[in-house]
Each structure stands twice: as C-alpha cells, then as structure tokens.
C-alpha cells in the first residue's frame, strides 16, 4: 500500500487550467456547470443584494475607457490552485492542504469556519456558508452524489472537480491504461462553448495545457505575490486588423 502511494506520487500529474481570454465570451456556462456539478446552493435575492454570492467560478468584468471608446474585459476567475498557497498555512485545523497532485484540497469535515483562509486568499475565490443550504424538494434530486453538500459554517471553493479527476483515474486504472491528455475535464471545461478553458497536466510537456502555457500570451494573476498559481491566463484582444 505504502509502495503504491509513493510510486503514484512520483508519477503524479500537476493539474493546471489554461484560460484563453481571447476565446472567453463571458457567457456564464462554466458558472452554471459548476453549480450543477458541485452542488453549490443559491443565496437568493435578499442575500445577493447584501453582496453575498456562492460561486466557485465567477466572470469578473472590468471597464476600460469611456464611451464611445469603452471596452469591457471579461475574465473567469476560480481558485488558482497555488503552489505556494497563502490559504494553507493559516488554517488551524489543516482543513485546507496541499495534495500530491498539487491541488489545494479542502476537507469539509475538518473545517471549523475560522475563515482565515478566505482572508488570506489574494484572489477572493473562497466562499463561506453563512446559512444552511436550501434545496426545496425535489431540487434535491439533482444533487451530484459524488460531492458533499456543505453545511453551515464551512468554507468552500473550486476543487478542479477532484471527483471527476478521481473518476477518470479509477476508470483508466480498471482498464489498465494511462490517462490520456484531455480525458480529465472539470465541469467548466467540459461545457465551455468557445473552448476557452483547457485542463491538463503540466508535468506532461506535450499536453495541450502545457503547450498553451508556453504561449507568449500567458500570464498569471497577481504573479508578483509569488503564489505560483496553476491557472494560466492567455491574454486576449490583440487585433491585427486596423479599424
């Protein structure tokens, strides 16, 4: 058993997401796919008006310039799965920790709700369950049985759909094969209509994600903080047509 763990850790992938801002249209398909896959509740109008939200991925919109030369930039932001994650060392109960595949995992039943991780996160991608989630029956039937429904007092965030990673890993193991590039797709990547999101293994230099990460357009959010995120953005909006 111990042998097993060791060998898998050595060959373990470094999961990463590439977000091509040139393809992204801001259509929110990823947001809803994430809700569906990860049993994320809605907060309702009253709480939403106070500024609460429960999304593991959001589309941030920034304005540039003034009318009529105004430009809106849309950018999907989810947990950046930092290699040097500021959220990890502050957790007093080790509810958030670094797994061998480089993911910032969140162990819900360890979480005691100090919200230190949320304060430490420079990307503000963690959301806290202030209330018990409500799924009026029969909306409970839609819940994904692979994912825990978080209760009140728990911090939650994007997991890169770890349940889908595990499912794909178990499937290929049962078939005695290796994971192929593109075989693991988080729900947001699976649904993204313009294929702006690409998921893959950075340890495999030939994966599509690795190739895109080497693009001259690539950058990382708040790179200067040294968090070394596993989400790589590709800059958009360069036009070669005069207009």
């Amino acid at each position, binding site marked *: 058993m111990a042998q097993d763990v060791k060998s898998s850790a050595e060959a373990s992938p470094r999961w990463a997401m590439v977000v091509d801002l040139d393809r992204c249209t801001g259509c929110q398909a990823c947001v809803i796919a994430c809700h569906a896959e990860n049993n994320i509740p809605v907060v309702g109008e009253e709480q939403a008006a106070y500024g609460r939200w429960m999304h593991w991925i959001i589309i941030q*919109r920034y*304005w540039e310039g003034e009318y009529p030369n105004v430009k809106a930039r849309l950018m999907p932001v989810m947990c950046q799965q930092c290699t040097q994650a500021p959220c990890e060392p502050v957790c007093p109960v080790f509810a958030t920790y670094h797994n061998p595949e480089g993911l910032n995992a969140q162990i819900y039943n360890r979480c005691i709700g100090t919200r230190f991780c949320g304060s430490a996160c420079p990307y503000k991608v963690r959301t806290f369950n202030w209330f018990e989630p409500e799924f009026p029956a*029969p909306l409970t039937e839609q819940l994904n049985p692979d994912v825990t429904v978080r209760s009140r007092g728990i911090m939650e965030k994007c997991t890169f759909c770890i349940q889908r990673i595990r499912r794909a890993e178990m499937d290929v193991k049962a078939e005695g094969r290796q994971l192929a590039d593109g075989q693991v797709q988080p729900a947001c990547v699976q649904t993204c209509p313009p294929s702006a999101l690409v998921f893959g293994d950075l340890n495999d230099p030939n994966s599509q994600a690795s190739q895109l990460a080497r693009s001259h357009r690539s950058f990382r959010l708040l790179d200067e903080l040294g968090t070394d995120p596993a989400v790589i953005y590709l800059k958009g909006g360069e036009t070669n047509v005069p207009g």
Partner: protein
Amino acid sequence: MKRLSRRDFLKTAAVAGVGVFTGIAPTVRRVALEPFVRPPEEELPGRATWFASTCRQCPAGCGILVRVINGRARKIEGNPAHPLNRGKLCARGQTGLQVLYNPDRLKNAVRQTGGREPRQFKPIQWTEALDQLVSTLNGLADRSRVAFLGGLVPDHLVALVSSFLKALGAPPPVLFDLHTTLEGRAEAADLARRWFGKPQGQVQGFPLPMYDIARAQVIFSFGANLLETWMSPVSQSYDYGLMRQGQAGGRGFLAQFEPRLSMTAASADKWIPVEPGTEGLIALGLGRIIVEDNLGHVGSHRDHAYLYRNVSVSDIAQASGVSIETLRKLANVFADADRSVAIPGGYLAGLSNGAQTMDTVMALNVVMRRLGREGGVFLPHQVPAEQFTSSASISPFSEAQSLIERMKAGQVDVLFIHSTNPVYELPGWAGFVEALDKVRLVVSFSSFMDETAIWADLVLPDHTYLEGWGYQGVSPGADRPAVSGQQPVVRPLYDTRSTADVVLALAARLGGQVAQALPWSDEVAFLEQSSTQLLGTSSGIYDARTPDGFWSRWRQHGGWWTEKPLRDEPEVSGMPTGPLQVSPAAFVGDPQQYPFHLALYPSLALTDGRGANQPWLQEMPDPMTTGRWNTWVELNPVTARSLGVHDNDVVKVISPQGELEAAVVVYPGIRPDAVAIPVGQGHSDYGRFAERRGSNPLSLVAPLLGQAPGLPLQWAATRVRVEGTGRRQELARLESLDGAGREKLR
C-alpha cells in the same frame, strides 16, 4: 471429493436418461432468488448511465448527454458527437435539471372551476379531461373553430398537431413566442426566402441562412448577439472560439454595430454604437464605398453598382453619426479580407425598416461574393427524409394578430396553448387577455402555472423535456444535415402526460377522418416510424438492417446526422431589381417628450422570461452588469448625471404605452440617447423563483402606427423618458461598487 467411477457414471447417466425420457423432474431444481426490491436492469450501484437527448431550453436543438444515477438525472452535458454543439452547452442548457426538478411543477391535470377570474383549480383525472375535450370537439358545429397556439414546440408535435388540425378542417398551428420574436427568426427566414428562394419554392419553413463564423476573417454583425441568445448561441460560440484562435490565417476580426454594448459587442474588436434605425444606412454606405472604390479582390463591382446608385456617403455619415473616415476604414477592412461575412441580427426585425436593413446587410455578402464560400453564407442541406424536411416554421407576428382577431370575433371555440406564454410575452395592447374571454374552452399544456395557464379552463401538463419524447430539426443548421432526437432520461415524476399522446388519443376517440390521419397507437410508434424514414441512407453516421435496429441506434446517438459536412451554396434568385432603399426608421413617441430610445434586450439567463423559474439562472450574474434576480435600467454615465441619478436609484421609465420602475445601473456601454432594460423578469405567476420580481418591459412597447398589418412586432421602436423617484433599491449584483472592480470577501 470421491472420484467418480465408470460404473457410477453409467448408473447416473441411465437414471438421468430415464428422467429425460419420462419427463420426471429432477429432485433438486434451480430456482432464482427473487429480491423484494428489484433494481432497474441498467442500474449498477454507484455507476452513472448516460442518455443522449435534446436540449429544449431554446429552439437551437443542441444534443445533450444526461448523467443518470439511481434513476435520477444529475447533470446535463453537451453531446460531443453532435455536430451542432460539439459537446458544449450554455448556462441555460446546464440548468435544464431545474425544469425537471422544479418545485413548482404541476403534478397533475387541473380544471378551473368557477370561471376564469377566481383561480380555483381542482385536480381532474386524465380520462375525465379527455372526455371533456372529446365531447367539446364533438359538440362543435364547425370544427374549423379550433386553434393551436404554440411556442417552443418540438418538431414531432408540430407535425402531429398539424395533421390533427388539418383532418379536423381547422387552420394550421400558429407558432409564435417572444424568444423567436427577439431573435427575428421569422424575419431571418423571410430574408433567406427573398434572396435565395426558388420561384415556386417552399412558402413555409424556408431554411435559415447560416454564417460560417469559424472560418471568417472579418465579421460585421449588425445587432446579432450571436454569443448570447440569437439562433444557435452554443454553436456560434464554438465557432467564435475557432475564429479567434483556431484559424490558420490568424485571428479573426469582429465588429458589432448596435446601440448598446452587448456581451457579444464586449467580445468584439470594435463596437460601433449606431443610432437605432440607421444600421441599414451604414450597410448601404459600406456597400457604396466598396462598389465606388472597387475594393476587394473579387473583380469588378460593375454588376452591383446599380444597388447603390443614389447613395450619398456623406448623408449617411451625418444620419448615422459614424464618420466618413470610419466608414471608409470599415469598408476597406471588410473588402480586403479574403473571407468576410455580414450578419443581420435579430433586433433589426424590431425596427420599422427591419426588412430593408436586413436586405442591405445581405447585399454586402452578395457584393463580396461570400455565398457558399468558406467563411461566408450557406444554406443547410436538407435531411433526406420527407418527415424532417418540413421543419417547423415560426409564424410572423401578423399570424398571431390574426388569431387574436379571430378569437375576439368569437370565431375560436377551442384554443390549445403549448410552450408559449402570450399573456406575459405580448404587450397588453395586442389584446390577448381580452380575446381569451371570447374563447369557450382554453386548454393549456404548460408544466407550470404561468400567466397564460391561469386563464385556461383545463391545464393538461406535458412532460418536461427530460421525461418526454420527440425530435427537433436543427435550424439554423450545423455544418451538416442533422435531426436531434429527444428521449426520456428519467421516468416522469408526476401524473403528467405527453401532449402528443393526448392528441393521438383525441384523434382515436373522434374517429373518422381524424383517426385515419393519425393512425399511431402512441407517440413512440410515430417517432419510430419517422426515424426509420432514414433507414438505408448511406450518408448517415450509422445505419441498420432492420427498423428496430435503426430506432435503437437513433436513441443511442440522440438523433441522426450525416458523417461528412454537407452545406448548400445559396443561389441568388431574388436580386433586387432597383437600388437598395432604407427608409428612416419610425419610432413611437415625440422626441421632445420622450428623449430616449428604449433598447430592450433578451436576458442572457432568462431569455424571454422562460428561464425565470429556475434558481440557477436567477442567481447567474448578467455578464455585463453583474445584476441578478431583478430588473434594472441601464443609463450612460452622462445621461445619469444629467438626470441626477446614481447606481441603485429607482427611476420611472415612461413610454407612450406604459411605465415601470427599476433600479439604475450606470452603464458606460450605451449611447447617451438610449435606455436599455433586460427582458425576462416581472412575472406575476410562474412559480416561487419568478413571481413578483422586477418588471416586464414589454409593457413599455407601444404599437407603431397602430401596428400596421404584416409588420413584425416593433419592439425596438419605442421612445421613453426617465424620471427619478427619489427612492433607492439595492440591486443584487456580483460586482462591488467600490470603483476598483475587485471583489471583496464578505
């Protein structure tokens, strides 16, 4: 174990042989153990079953795969094999589960007791409901007084209902709803028919033109919100991604011409905020410059010069507010590209000069020889089976109006309503509610108690799309002929019944001609027979030796499509004989009294309002304003300042027809002379998530010149004024208004 000796073996064999010959049963029998609870055959604990079906959240007809565990649908994903959406799905498609598992669904058939006002609904048995329908239909002196009003009706039901009405001797179904109105679907089909129709071609259901976004180098979109709700947004978004980063010839260029910066315009390289109603003039000016300066690499433009004979570019620049230099630059960009395409969008149809504007936009494609060329304009290739060629055609507004007139005149005794909500979707002046009063029996097939269903005498809920059968011709098409197949992925949750089965049962009970026209025992028999029309088609992705085999592969794949791409090149048969004309657009409301153009737009989440009962869609932030759960009014910062209002101030928007109140969103991406409001909220009925939330801006839309007959609904031709109320209402939005544009953790 004891070794079996030869003697023992022979003895046993002899005894067994006697047993066989005499029919004596062996002393120990094998009996299968029967558990008390028997799991369905395809269920493996902890393993998901995936079923291919069709999304019904909009008319596009994307293929879906539904993940089912223990008999419950858990997740909807795009079908990677489907040629339209190619594995992708939009936010509304993902939310389909909340239609199926919506807590406010009707659980059984109901009838209204005590007239239509007091809203007393009592459950009714299906047999009783059918009895009532049969006796009403039998009691009619004149069966032509039956009418069917549909919206997002699947093609198989349109086919069945059309045969049913024809056999009854009643007029064909009217298919009209707000979603298709806002995307100008009927008018887009009209445009294609005007330009590419054969002289004796189809009158109804002309295929919609397709624009090859993926391979275009330059796209000029005139108000087509092709990444949001227009036509086939998932397919178009997929192609947009390819246009941006997947092309061999480099990154494509998208210019968007519209008064408000939509999400599509935000993704565009250039947004040109045109004065509403002058889109056609701009297309005309671009064409004139191309022809006059002989731009592009397609040879002489002499043949097309007459189209732009009397066009003055400087007049156009003045009228539209787009400078001559900009027009020249744009004309050069469009003409210099090898693969450019101009797309006429849906909101043009809501303007009084919509048809002319769409013509001038299409003319750009003709002048630049973009028909049937890579990155240009195509027509879909027909599915090679009669059943699927006459795909459902959307009725123009005039047909809905004439139905209302017939109802008002007391010429309709029985009205069937399926998947449309005219009481909410039509402006009050269309008179639908008053017309309902004159109809003896109103039957709704709605799954929810919406604004129209509450006026019905009988509500006979159809299955939701994840519980029901059907098929949907893909239009506007994928790059090949395709029919999306719909099948139940879960057992129906409640005592609902397929409307197709209700129609077939009615036909059987009525007997005679009607029963002969609809001989199928049930919906599935009809679908099976329809699907096997494609049996033996060599071009399909699959074939089978038997109809049964074909039908099972149909369900497995979720429809039928060809293996190879196949599109038709449009041939211009209806070239304008004289110069192109664009008359000035007419607007309701005196500009002095009503200084702003009302720019309605379909909400990305709720589209025309049918998504309003799904909590995920309500909570989904609008990408541009990040607003949720309510209605808002978008004002240019300059306009807001001049009115003295700020974000979250409640204003009153007043048109010659009506007024509404909503919170302000100061929006940098809108012309100062326009006011934008999303459509979709303001439901008075339709379940707990939709009701009493925001306002329905259709109440502002005024009839243009008494809404001349034959015109589409002029939903973009109203002027309004805005007044402050002094009140504030915190709009639920995702962005924090700290000015930095960054989220704060709360």
